[in-house]
């Protein structure tokens, strides 16, 4: 539909590629293999690691010189994998654990922000249709694993370093998965996992990726290197040019960090106001407003709401929304503004991302393992609703990994019947694309919100039918987003 591009931030070419993926064969027998450096992330993760080594003065002048000479030689037609072997042998004796920690640290501080948003959208498209998604790279797992985890990718096909007694020996286990070896690594993975390569997908950017790409039926040259671009033209392979993270990696990472800081600042400022003015409830409301609007403003997230007035006509109420992203909570908090709380599972109490919010809105925690205590908690919730506090609830239970709507649990609607309050349905779109479930990266963009007609007079007799009808309304709204 028109406007999709502005809303989703994906180019027409990427949207067409996603449509083609969704229209093609589905299921785990179809593989989707993504190169790491230059494909999933902009730039080279190895350069980030090496930059860190240089900064930490771990590098002797001799090693530095050898590295530079080897790198230049690789560019000038020499063996391009020698540079990596020079680096690996320099790691002899280093602790694997420390290196893995370094990988995590560099991911948070630098690499996370370089993940291309449109690559992520492609990964998600493959996950939605149930393909077996893997990162296939000559890099080591210390570079790849944090990125793969952030993208929800389980499989790695990568260069293995030999570790003895927790230390690197400086050797690789098997060849470095570069060029032909990456291709054979992918073919071996396909044999092991029962993947049909002729219907599978691969994405790569380097000139050395031709063998890797030609292993599958659907190769795509993604932001290709000059020589791969000419080869792709000759071989008739599609080329996708993705936009790099806005203003480079640092800015995107900075936005996320600023958003987290903003949330904390908002909470502290709001609570301080409450303490100073002696009105804790107003203090909480101020904190919500600041804690939710500050980070979103800092991260460049805008909210576009249809029927905002319906958020205010039926309070107190139970607000039900679909759930795709950690971003949903600040977005809804920002919309509901005041006098509301949430029901959360007990485990979430200790989630650092939720803790900040939990101080502010005093959630009702449910212990799912103990139904008696769960019921008691909910009785308390009914009283709070009757006392004027609205409740925000995600009836799908957990965040869905995909924008596909999960089934609704009945709890929220039982509460509506018991407390005698209306249900206000809130449909969210795009939040999963701006900040994916369990991702640390928040991308700028617009979240679409549509508030549906509030539904009143809930009772136990026709609960299931009404829930089913409401579920259908959510699906229809997501499928055909209303213009007014």
């Amino acid at each position: 539909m028109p406007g999709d591009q502005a809303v989703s931030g994906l180019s027409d070419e990427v949207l067409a590629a996603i449509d083609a993926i969704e229209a093609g064969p589905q299921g785990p027998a179809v593989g989707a293999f993504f190169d790491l450096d230059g494909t999933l992330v902009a730039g080279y993760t190895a350069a980030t690691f090496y930059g860190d080594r240089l900064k930490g003065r771990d590098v002797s002048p001799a090693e530095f010189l050898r590295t530079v000479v080897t790198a230049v030689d690789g560019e000038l037609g020499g063996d391009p994998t020698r540079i990596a072997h020079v680096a690996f042998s320099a790691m002899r004796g280093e602790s694997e654990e420390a290196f893995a920690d370094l990988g995590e640290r560099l991911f948070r501080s630098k690499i996370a922000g370089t993940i291309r948003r449109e690559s992520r959208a492609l990964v998600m498209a493959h996950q939605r249709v149930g393909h077996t998604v893997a990162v296939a790279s000559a890099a080591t797992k210390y570079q790849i694993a944090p990125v793969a985890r952030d993208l929800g990718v389980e499989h790695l096909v990568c260069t293995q370093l030999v570790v003895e007694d927790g230390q690197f020996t400086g050797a690789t286990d098997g060849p470095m998965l570069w060029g032909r070896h990456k291709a054979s690594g992918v073919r071996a993975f396909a044999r092991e996992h029962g993947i049909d390569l002729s219907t599978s997908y691969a994405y790569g950017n380097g000139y050395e990726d031709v063998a890797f790409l030609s292993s599958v039926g659907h190769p795509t040259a993604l932001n290709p290197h000059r020589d791969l671009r000419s080869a792709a033209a000759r071989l008739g392979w599609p080329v996708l040019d993705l936009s790099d993270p806005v203003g480079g990696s640092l800015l995107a990472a900075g936005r996320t960090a600023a958003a987290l800081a903003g949330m904390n600042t908002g909470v502290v400022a709001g609570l301080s106001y409450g303490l100073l003015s002696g009105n804790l409830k107003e203090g909480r409301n101020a904190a919500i407003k600041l804690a939710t609007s500050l980070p979103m403003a800092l991260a460049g997230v805008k909210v576009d709401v249809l029927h905002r007035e319906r958020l205010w006509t039926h309070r107190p109420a139970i607000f039900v929304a679909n759930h795709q992203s950690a971003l949903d909570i600040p977005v809804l908090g920002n919309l509901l503004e005041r006098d509301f709380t949430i029901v959360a599972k007990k485990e979430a109490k200790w989630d650092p991302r939720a803790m900040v919010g939990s101080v502010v809105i005093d959630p009702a925690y449910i212990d799912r393992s103990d139904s008696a205590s769960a019921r008691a908690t909910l009785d308390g919730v009914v009283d709070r609703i009757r006392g004027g506090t609205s409740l925000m609830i995600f009836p799908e239970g957990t965040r869905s990994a995909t924008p596909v709507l999960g089934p609704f649990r009945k709890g929220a609607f039982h509460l509506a019947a018991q407390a005698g309050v209306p249900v206000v349905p809130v449909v969210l779109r795009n939040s999963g694309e701006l900040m994916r479930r369990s991702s640390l990266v928040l991308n700028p963009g617009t979240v679409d919100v549509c508030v549906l007609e509030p539904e009143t007079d809930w009772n136990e007799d026709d609960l299931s039918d009404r829930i089913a009808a409401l579920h259908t309304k959510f699906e229809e709204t997501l499928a055909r987003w209303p213009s007014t």
Partner: protein
Amino acid sequence: MTTSEDFERWGGAAAWASGEELTPMQTLMWRAERHPVQSSTSTVVIDLDRAPDWKRFVAATEWGTGLVRRLRQRVVEPVVPTAAPRWADDPTFDLGYHLRREHVASREEMLAQAAQIALRPFDRTRPLWEGVLFEGLAGEGGAGAAYVLKIHHALADPLGTVQLLSMLQSGRRAHTARKPVGAEVGAPAVVDPVDLAVSGLRAGSANLAASALSTARTLVSTRPSTAVAATLRYGASVRRLVSQAAPPSPELSPRTGRMWSFLTLEAPLDRLRAVAKQGGGTLDDAAVALVLGGLRRYHERRGGPVPEIPVGVRVSLDRADDLGNRFAGAIISGPLAIEDPVDRVAAVRGEVLSLHTERALEVLEAAAPLLNRMPAFVGAGALQTAAVPDAFVLTLPGPPRRRYMAGAEVQGMYVLGPLPGAALTVCLVTVGDTACIGVNVDASAVADLRELEECLAEGVEEMASAP
């Protein structure tokens, strides 16, 4: 098969190869030739179900050379190499010099004689082909025959040779009475080597001045850093193309290039195509994989397994999956350690397609016009600088159906290519539903020829029986 199809094909043959000058690549090969070590000679062995009537065979050949003028022409060189050599009718053309028949007892003897024929240099002042009909082979009925045709690359490359032969053969066993004949030509064109050199010098200096001017213009309009970067990238690509393939196998040396030994194998084409498809490759990839499968066994039995060997392949410069018109020769690292034939095809496919990232792939083609202005030994040197593979593998499309030559049915058509430094040259020709595989082996480089032949036959079997 109708006669009208034959007529159409023969009409095509009459129009075949009508240019007057040798192309730059042909010229390079003509001038650089050092037979047999750096030879440009291909030999075709055609198995026939019976010995054709000799008179009819001679008459048919006479007709064929009349239809395709090139077969009665020779190459005229300018006195100094300022111009490309030209084709001119040979006023002394005598079919008896080019075509004869011999008697042999077995197919092995025929193949051995064919190799000896191939090793003898051409008379470069005459039309560049020689045909021998071998009779008395112990065929199925004991009456089999084979036609051996030796042809110079300047006249036709292996692909052109197969095309030409396919065009000249008949769709029927019976004689076709009123066959088309070539256009009547006037007096044989006399080309004077001195005139050729002088006119070449005049045109050449004009061209060189123009090209120098345009080069200078390009250089002026380009930023120096851009030009330097482009040159470095080109140089890097050349270096990768000539140096990065696998090291040559010690099991396939020392090569002298002076002892040719011919082997022939056949494989079911549909099975080869099925394996190629499973591995996501083409018939060319499957042919390379087949040869590698045979060589893998040979290396294992000789006790010297190696992970990969350099293999010379032909790459289309147009589109990967089309036949295209422009080809470049290049060397890949042929995987010798992969046991699964399908996986081997996929690996070969990856190697071949990877060549398309090399901007220098067209280097030989691009360099040919320039090298031709140099004395012959410089051109030869240029050809030698490229690393030499252990094996060349080439696939050629032959006739889609069984054809006839003067009443004898063609049962197989094998191309035995030259050995420009390689230990093996393998050509796969598709004839109907069969892949006819011709192997020229440098007998000095292979310690056990019988073992190699067995291993290659097992390589065929492995492909034919792949699930």
